[in-house]
């Protein structure tokens, strides 16, 4: 039998990254402020995890104007979504094998 642990994605072992990605799976895009309130994080903490996810092409950043104010929003990439689904399936496998 294949070992389900091999499908666990190291990048999602961190609870904060897991949280960011969970939110971006069910929303087209979310702003920095909304993510910060949702996950109850400080600016610096959230920014560093977003940066890490961005560097691995799991999420993409876009700057846009909402009204007259610039806003930074985040989206999951197709690759990121696949990776997350794989991780989710591995978690479920682990659970059912316990």
């Amino acid at each position: 039998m294949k070992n389900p642990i091999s499908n666990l994605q190291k990048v999602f072992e961190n609870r904060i990254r897991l949280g960011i990605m969970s939110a971006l799976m069910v929303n087209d895009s979310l702003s920095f402020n909304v993510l910060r309130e949702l996950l109850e994080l400080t600016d610096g903490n959230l920014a560093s995890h977003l940066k890490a996810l961005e560097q691995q092409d799991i999420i993409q950043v876009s700057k846009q104007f909402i009204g007259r104010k610039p806003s930074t929003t985040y989206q999951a990439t197709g690759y990121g979504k696949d990776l997350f689904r794989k991780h989710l399936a591995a978690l479920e496998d682990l659970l059912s094998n316990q």
Partner: protein
Amino acid sequence: MKNSSTHPNEDLQAIRDIMERSSRFLSLSGLSGIFAGIIALMGAAITWLFILDSGHVHYDEFLRIPGGGTFSGIRLYLALDALLVLGLAVAGAVFFSQRKSRKAGQRLWTNSTRRLVLHLMIPLVAGGIFILILVLHNNWGLVASAMLMFYGLALVNAGKFTFGEIHYLGLTEIGLGILAGVFLDYGLLLWALGFGLMHIVYGSVMYYRHERKR
């Protein structure tokens, strides 16, 4: 919040929790409720003072008018008054939601918004059609009750996709709708209570709970 984990159970629970919370419509502002409530109270006051002539016209199933006045005139004014209240309340809701979402750096029209509006509109449109049917059959006495009931059902239906208070506001409206159906003479009063006072009460609670500190 724990940073690293190897517990699949807790991880899955956290994923579900965040997916659920993040897909709610959070741009709904308590100020929308307060504004809608004030507009509704003004609409009810206009109805009572001018259209029903301070109670000289009985609001019951026959809309009895002692001493003059025409049915069609009263109907027209009631309909205009109701449409004006609805229009202003909806405009207020859009305005305050736009403001709140802009502050959060989010667009107003998202998947969550679409889902909320859809689930709100299904019972609401059904109710609107039902009320037109009541009017068609000249059954005016039940209009206030039907408005409260269907609005309450719409809120309960949409409450799953936004702040929890909306669910309870919906239940309150349903209760008032039942009362308005039993006590026909108090239809307008209960309508003012449901669409006026309750909007202000729940709107204030929502504002203080979710918006004050920001």
